[in-house]
């Protein structure tokens, strides 16, 4: 009441002030530490993947003096273009290599010599000759794709100190490769194959495109099903459904579904879509449907939360000027809720992009060399491809695995960027 008491209150507040500020500082520190820890782990993970993965984006070529000898090609005197397509280019490469290293005579050594060049080189030679039949009988210096092991040695990934028996690249091959390098017959080029080809048994011929396109188709199917159905369900449950025992039950079930292990959805997909409806196995269509079922609960739950967060005053404002319920929802509620809905959907889609287990159940684990041309073609997806490559014994696939992870992450970042862009557009309005 009097000034004396005022003074005491001030003193009390001041005494507590120091404690309060200290607590605040500590709280901030903990927060910063948590963020830092997160960043350190993320950095380690990314650094590891990038260091392991970047070599996969380049591969070596070896300049070979190719002798397009008609006999070695096994062509008749008057050959047709059909003959050219069937000619023995492997023999040509082998002969050319032998000519380059004439002192190789033992059969085992010869075989090692041939292993310097990828078998893919045969096909590129064939394409060259079919395109230009005049090459037959000529000699040309041609850059041929190196075998993945040779390339890996040239990249410096093979330690010469290890026992020869434990290395894929033998001493003699090292000598040849060193000689080629000194002559300027080796070259490191950007690996276009990785982005343009499907899977292959040979690491240097394996590419990510089939899996990338497979993922794209699968996610397209997932999005086209899960987004509209999820948002519609959320709108109905929030805005139209009566509150009663039945809707409560539905709500509980949706929440439970969100927690069901994804492999269960895979089994469901196998039983229902493949065995009962006889949809094609290994196809993005079925994969997309299964993943849509899996992401639906996530989208419904987050969309409902976003719709619920729209202030009721906006409802009132719209209804107050005579908007119908649907107009209120479409013109006012949805635009305000859209950023939240998009965030939820992108979380669901990111989950779907990284999902492997349910897709294994429906056969999307196949060895896919062809880039799928539609949602019913056999396909695989990025995480399954990563799984397959990580499982391969060849060292050439190790770097491919990390590179595929990088592609997967780039895909994810692009998806997120699209969502952020859309969200901005909605928020600006």
């Amino acid at each position, binding site marked *: 009441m009097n000034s004396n008491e005022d003074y005491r209150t001030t003193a009390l507040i001041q005494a507590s002030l120091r404690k309060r500020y200290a607590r605040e500082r500590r709280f901030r520190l903990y927060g910063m530490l948590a963020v830092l820890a997160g960043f350190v782990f993320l950095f380690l993970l990314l650094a590891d993947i990038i260091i392991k993965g970047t070599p996969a984006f380049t591969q070596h070529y070896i300049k070979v003096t190719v002798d397009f000898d008609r006999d070695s090609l096994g062509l008749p005197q008057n050959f047709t273009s059909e003959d050219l397509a069937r000619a023995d280019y492997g023999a040509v490469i082998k002969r050319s290599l032998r000519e380059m290293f004439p002192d190789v005579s033992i059969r085992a050594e010869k075989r090692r010599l041939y292993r310097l060049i990828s078998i893919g080189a045969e096909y590129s030679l064939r394409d060259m000759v079919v395109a230009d039949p005049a090459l037959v009988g000529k000699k040309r210096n041609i850059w041929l794709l190196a075998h993945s092991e040779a390339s890996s040695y040239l990249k410096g990934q093979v330690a010469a100190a290890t026992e020869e028996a434990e290395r894929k690249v033998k001493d003699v091959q090292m000598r040849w490769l060193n000689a080629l390098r000194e002559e300027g017959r080796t070259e490191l080029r950007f690996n276009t194959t990785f982005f343009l080809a499907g899977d292959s048994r040979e690491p240097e011929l394996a590419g990510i495109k089939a899996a990338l396109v497979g993922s794209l188709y699968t996610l397209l199917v997932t999005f086209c099903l899960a987004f509209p159905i999820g948002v519609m369900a959320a709108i109905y449950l929030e805005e139209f459904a009566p509150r009663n025992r039945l809707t409560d039950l539905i709500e509980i079930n949706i929440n439970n579904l969100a927690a069901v292990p994804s492999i269960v959805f895979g089994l469901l997909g196998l039983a229902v879509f493949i065995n009962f409806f006889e949809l094609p196995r290994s196809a993005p269509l079925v994969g997309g449907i299964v993943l849509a079922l899996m992401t639906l609960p996530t989208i419904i739950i987050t969309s409902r939360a976003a719709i619920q967060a729209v202030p*009721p005053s*906006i409802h009132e404002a*719209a209804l*107050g000027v*005579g908007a119908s319920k649907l*107009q209120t929802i479409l013109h006012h509620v949805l635009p305000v809720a859209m950023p939240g809905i998009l965030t939820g959907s992108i979380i669901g889609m990111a989950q779907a992009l990284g999902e492997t287990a349910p897709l294994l159940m429906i056969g999307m684990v196949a060895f896919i060399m062809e880039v799928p041309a539609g949602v019913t073609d056999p396909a695989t997806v990025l995480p399954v491809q990563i799984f397959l490559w990580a499982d391969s014994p060849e060292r050439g696939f190790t770097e491919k695995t990390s590179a595929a992870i990088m592609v997967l992450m780039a895909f994810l970042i692009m998806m997120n960027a699209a969502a952020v862009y859309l969200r901005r557009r909605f928020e600006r309005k």
Partner: protein
Amino acid sequence: MASRMENSERMGADKNVTNRTVTDAHSAGSGGSLESLHLNPDARGQETIGSPFVKRAKMSARDVNVFYGEKQAISNISLDIAQNEILAMIGPSGCGKSTFLRTLNRMNDIIPACRVEGKITLDGEDIYQKERDTVLLRARVGMVFQKPNPFPKSIYENVAYGPKIHGLAQNKATMDEIVESSLRRASLFDEVKDQLDKPGTGLSGGQQQRLCIARAIAVSPEIILMDEPCSALDPIATARIEELMNELKENYTIAIVTHSMQQAARVSQRTAYFHLGELIEVGETKEIFTLPQHQLTENYITGRFG
């Protein structure tokens, strides 16, 4: 010119009212009267004093009860709103003014727990009949809410939205005209004419309230319900809104909730006094403010309460 004079005279008179209010509140002392009023058993279950019914009723409510779940917010209210009049509703906070106002355009429908009993008619037709269309009703009975609630869209879109969905403007030029005249009448146009594409939520509280008024009058409703439209406005904007109401009265019917006795006295023809969910007294504004019949009304308007 004459009306101006009258207005300013009235304002002067109101100052006296304010002064008296303050002194009365002081002399009333520790506020004991406030509690005794709340607990006063006489305030419950009695007939409305005055004349709730009029000859040319635009809207009329009969025996209206409103419940929020178990809780009764309004009991047995019967009240008419005459054509081309301004009806003021006054009463202490929480007495059910907003609730009653919202029953008039079925705004309470969207509150799940809310239940409305009784009969409310607009031009003789029961608005609570099942097949009655709430969209049409709300287009005819517009509303300005207690809290300003502009759409999170541009100022232009805020005003144009109603006319757009009802198809009131055939082309862009007509729409521009509607938007401009609505903003002018809400005395907001000069402040925002250069930023019509800026979000309405970025305006000040008072500007937002005027934007909501512009939005409500843009659809030319027959009746406008205003829930404390001037609570966030300065005296100048308040005076303009009151002018607008006077002007609108020629063609429209207005029901306004207000906490300002002076405003009720200035703008309204009839005044209704609510207390704890009941309609205590209703009558000609002049009479209510000069010769209140009920003790509660007198206490309230002389400032011994509220």
